[in-house]
């Protein structure tokens, strides 16, 4: 078998270890979770995502949908990267087939899961320190003048810091992958993006920032994470019989691959399980070679060899000696274990660092690369040499971005290209990778090549990481839970336009609790965004109102500084209490009314004062303090700023009080309470309102319309039935007095006038 590098399909990059010619392996089932058929748009080459059970029937090619008399429309949700598609008519025409379904969709490229949100938050927390005032920029260049020992120490500290960030990034991403896969909340393209990102990060770490002694292990981890070798399955396949060691494929397809990937413990274990001990009696020579080979493999010190080349060369020399010794073994094809011996010879040659044999026996370029690093020389220069030598044989499809293409670019030093291609697949990881590169000075080479930093292109390049971070922050603004992370990024970076962006986005945040709201206010205060904070107060007031927190809601409106809206909401409260015929059920509001010493915004206290008087009226009436209650009612009606559309309902409160005279009823609760002076006042109030009802001014027309609507709501059958539970409600009392509840304002006025006339008559007779 010859070396064929990167023989991947354009889209699916998994299962590279299976060669078409590996017939014996071809029936092993390998999970191909990322295998899917991506469609691409013929006009733009953009990926196509089809709506599940979409509204347009399948057909050949592109059909102008207007031919069927329909148009396609959609709306985008302001939050969580969602939208909805629907079919509509064209210019009001009626098509034959009517589809009135809505097809929600997720904006492609946006990940919307709890796990991903957590990953984004973790990344931000992890990088917060180096984002602050764009510290990643100042970190990029190392001081060159100073005490050498200090400079060295500074470099070491910086590398350690960046490595720590990178490790956190990898750990968080690994956790994300595990969580999303476990929860089954990731689709193929997202999963592919995560896998590509983790592979890129693993290789990036092994090449940059990591300590030298970690490098061999990290490179092996990179390959084994990127292209998992299911060695346990392969072991079961090849070692199903007791003398598994005699199966040539066991050596060529399993042991060889484990060795080339640096999985020495696994290699020694599978050899140990192969039953080769039986050779001890039948072929002690071969047994001894296998045993020695295992011993040498076990003694490979990936940590030590990375920093001590002499130790490595010593080990390599031992392996060479074993190889040479093995070469003297019987080479007669009639030898019983000729095939095994031949494979062992190849293995020894690989482990002795023979580039030719490595090349001939590897199935993928990355295996070859790792084998070179492990056995030729564990030194970074080997990587460059490897690429110089084998560049033409490494095949990578330039039209698709797979983890292999990314890694080849990374190994060749094209970091920027990797980042820009990773960004559409995994924006968050790509952005923080760019931050690390910038901080680590890995873009310096590009800058040297660009030279002059003044032209527009170079300037854009210099600001690439800034732009990526800003784009990342903006992308978070489409997901409710990530808005604070987006704000955090802009805030930390101290971007000049951050204030304006934050001012625009803060009101979009649906603050679910006080902490979140106070966080928003703190930002407004810090950035002096007074108009935004006013808007936030009003929005929060509305949210609290919807949740039934009346006083808190009114407090928010008053804190917004908008007296108009505070007044409107207070009048709404007043109207509500008037229609209900009782105080609204809100303990805090009650406490505020009862206790003038409670500190609230003066505007709020002033705005709710009509409601407070109405509440007092209801209380006094319930307590049987009718005269005092009437006094409150009269003062309310005479209140110069009273909303005039509320007047009829306020006047209606007189109905049961006047009922005694009109119906001649004697009630314990209801007794004659009006003095002649009070009756005159009521008459004046009635006259005043009656007069307005007959004026033709547009403003008054609206008032009359509103008063009519409000009154009709209050005397609707539902409202009357609801009021039955309240014995002191005017409608309940009227019914008790056999008074028909007036159906409209006009009837009310008539009823009141009649009742007053009766009352006056009684007073006169007395």
């Amino acid at each position, binding site marked *: 078998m010859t070396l064929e590098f990167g023989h991947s399909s354009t889209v699916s990059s998994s299962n590279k270890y299976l060669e078409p010619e590996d017939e014996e392996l071809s029936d092993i089932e390998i999970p191909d979770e990322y295998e899917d058929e991506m469609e691409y748009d013929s*006009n*733009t080459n*953009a*990926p*196509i995502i*089809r*709506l599940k*059970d*979409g*509204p*347009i029937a*399948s*057909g050949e090619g*592109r059909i102008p*949908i*207007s031919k069927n008399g*329909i148009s*396609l*429309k*959609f*709306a*985008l949700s*302001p*939050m969580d*990267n969602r*939208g909805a598609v*629907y079919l*509509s*008519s064209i*210019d*009001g025409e*009626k098509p034959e087939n*009517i589809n*009135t379904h*809505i097809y*929600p*969709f997720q*904006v492609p490229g946006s990940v919307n899961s709890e796990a991903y949100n957590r990953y984004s938050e973790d990344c931000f927390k992890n990088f917060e320190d180096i984002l602050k005032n764009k510290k990643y920029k100042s970190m990029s260049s190392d001081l060159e003048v100073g005490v050498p020992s200090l400079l060295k120490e500074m470099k070491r500290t910086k590398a350690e810091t960046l490595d720590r960030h990178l490790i956190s990034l990898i750990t968080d991403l690994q956790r994300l992958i595990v969580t999303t896969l476990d929860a089954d*909340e990731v*689709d193929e393209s*997202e999963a592919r993006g995560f896998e590509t990102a983790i592979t890129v990060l693993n290789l990036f770490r092994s090449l940059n920032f990591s300590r030298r002694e970690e490098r061999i292990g990290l490179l092996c981890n990179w390959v084994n994470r990127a292209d998992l070798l299911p060695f346990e399955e392969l072991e079961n396949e090849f070692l199903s019989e007791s003398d598994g060691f005699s199966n040539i494929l066991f050596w060529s397809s399993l042991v060889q691959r484990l060795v080339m990937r640096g999985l020495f413990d696994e290699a020694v274990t599978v050899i140990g399980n192969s039953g080769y001990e039986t050779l001890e009696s039948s072929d002690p020579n071969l047994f001894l070679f296998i045993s020695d080979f295992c011993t040498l493999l076990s003694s490979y010190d990936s940590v030590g060899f990375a920093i001590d080349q002499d130790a490595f060369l010593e080990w390599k020399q031992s392996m060479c000696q074993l190889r040479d010794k093995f070469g003297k073994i019987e080479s007669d094809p009639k030898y019983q274990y000729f095939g095994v011996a031949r494979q062992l010879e190849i293995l020894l040659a690989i482990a002795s660092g023979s580039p030719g044999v490595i090349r001939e026996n590897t199935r993928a370029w990355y295996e070859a690369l790792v084998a070179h690093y492990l056995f030729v020389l564990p030194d970074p220069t080997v990587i460059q040499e490897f690429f110089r030598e084998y560049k033409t044989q490494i095949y990578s499809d330039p039209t698709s971005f797979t983890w292999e293409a990314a890694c080849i670019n990374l190994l060749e030093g094209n970091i920027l290209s990797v980042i820009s291609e990773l960004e*559409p697949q995994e924006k968050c990881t790509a952005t923080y990778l760019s931050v690390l590169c910038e901080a680590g000075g890995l873009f310096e080479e590009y800058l040297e090549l660009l030279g002059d930093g003044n032209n527009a292109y170079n300037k854009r390049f210099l600001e690439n990481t800034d732009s990526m971070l800003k784009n990342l922050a903006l992308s978070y*603004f*489409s997901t*409710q839970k990530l808005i604070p992370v987006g704000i955090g990024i802009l805030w930390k970076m101290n971007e000049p*336009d951050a204030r*304006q962006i934050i001012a*625009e*986005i803060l*009101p979009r945040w*649906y603050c679910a609790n006080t902490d979140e709201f106070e966080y928003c206010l703190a930002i407004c205060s810090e950035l002096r965004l007074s*108009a935004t904070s006013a*808007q936030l107060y*009003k*929005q929060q007031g*509305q949210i609290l109102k919807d949740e039934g927190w009346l006083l808190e809601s009114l407090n928010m409106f008053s804190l917004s500084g908008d007296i*108009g809206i505070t*007044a409107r909401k207070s009048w709404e409260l007043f109207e509500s209490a008037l229609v209900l015929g009782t105080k609204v059920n809100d303990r805090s509001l009650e406490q505020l009314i009862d206790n003038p010493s409670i500190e609230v915004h003066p505007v709020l206290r002033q705005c709710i004062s009509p409601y407070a008087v109405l509440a007092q009226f209801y209380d006094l009436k319930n307590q049987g303090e009718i005269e005092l209650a009437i006094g409150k009612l009269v003062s309310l009606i005479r209140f110069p700023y009273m909303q005039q559309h509320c007047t009829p309902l306020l006047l209606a409160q007189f109905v049961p009080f006047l009922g005694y005279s009109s119906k001649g009823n004697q009630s314990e609760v209801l007794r004659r309470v009006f003095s002649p002076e009070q009756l005159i006042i009521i008459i004046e109030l009635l006259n005043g309102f009656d007069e307005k009802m007959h004026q033709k001014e547009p403003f008054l027309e*609206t008032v009359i319309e*509103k008063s009519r609507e409000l009154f009709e709501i209050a005397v609707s059958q539902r409202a009357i039935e609801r009021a039955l539970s309240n014995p002191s409600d005017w409608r309940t009392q009227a019914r008790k007095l056999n008074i028909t509840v007036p159906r409209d304002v006009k009837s009310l006025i008539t009823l009141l006038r009649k009742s007053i006339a009766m009352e006056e008559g009684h007073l006169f007779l007395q």
Partner: protein
Amino acid sequence: MKESLKPFATGHEELIHDLAYDFYGRQLATCSSDQHIKVFDLDPNTSEWILNDSWKAHDSSVVKVAFAAPEFGHILASISYDRSVKIWEEDFDEQAGSGRRWKRLATISGSQGALYDIAFAPSHLGLRLGTIGSDGVLRIYDALEPSNLRNWTLISELSVLAVPPAANLQSDFSLTWSPSRFSPEKVLVCALDQAFIYVKDKNDRYVMGKMLPEHNGLIRSVSWAPTMGRSYHLIATGCKDGYVRIFKLTESLKGDDGLEDTVKELDAFATNGAYDSEPGSDIQIETLSTHNDHDGEVWKVSWNVTGTILSSAGDDGTIRLWKASYSNKYQCMSVISAQQK
């Protein structure tokens, strides 16, 4: 596999004309030729849309619905071919599904033709809305008294077209407001194949400032992007001629006399909310990008909440998502096909 978003039946008896989300994306309103409006609430746990209420709203097809900013309450506006605008408010005391959950606050008449589009102005301008109808007149209304949303005042009435289009001809009208609170008020009105930007003059009157160039057919849809810190505006149109167009609108505050003029202009803006100079003279319009990949009419365009992604729907049965590259070139980054495989 990740939970897929399921299609759901609205229950409308005729085709849907419009769909609008509320400010937070938690409520969705639809309107239809069946003269009804339906409002759905998002169940945050299941991501499903639950019917909040459905009611007969107009005496003809309801063509557009729009939610007001949340600080004004749960306010919804609708327009119809019956030439009226109606303002609705959610009444939490009424049961969902009762048909009474949304209370009509006001009916605004005055249009001489069927209404085609309605849009609330950004909330920093107060509770203001604009309408455009087949009479080619832009009408702007204000709820001047915040305590009374039943009372809407017509503050401006502008004939966008010199002559209204003949009734038998195909026509379309749309409008969008500049969402920016950091620049003077602007509203863009599309009438047939023309798009006009209206700005305020020194007398606080709306006047035509600039026109968007290049359209060769009815403009079907228009969307003004949130500025998000950009020093310029982005506007997108979808046209019957098959093109999605993206325009860059730059405002220059600086006159020929340099800083002094700038200060004067800023002072004028701070005092009057409008500039002193010739309306629109400080606006430059540049066509950033044009795309005809829908292979037919473009029915709808819409910017996302950050103005970074433009979506367009067209006659090829797809929604295309456009995004600017770092070199500021718009590219189609994804296609959502409504056609079954």
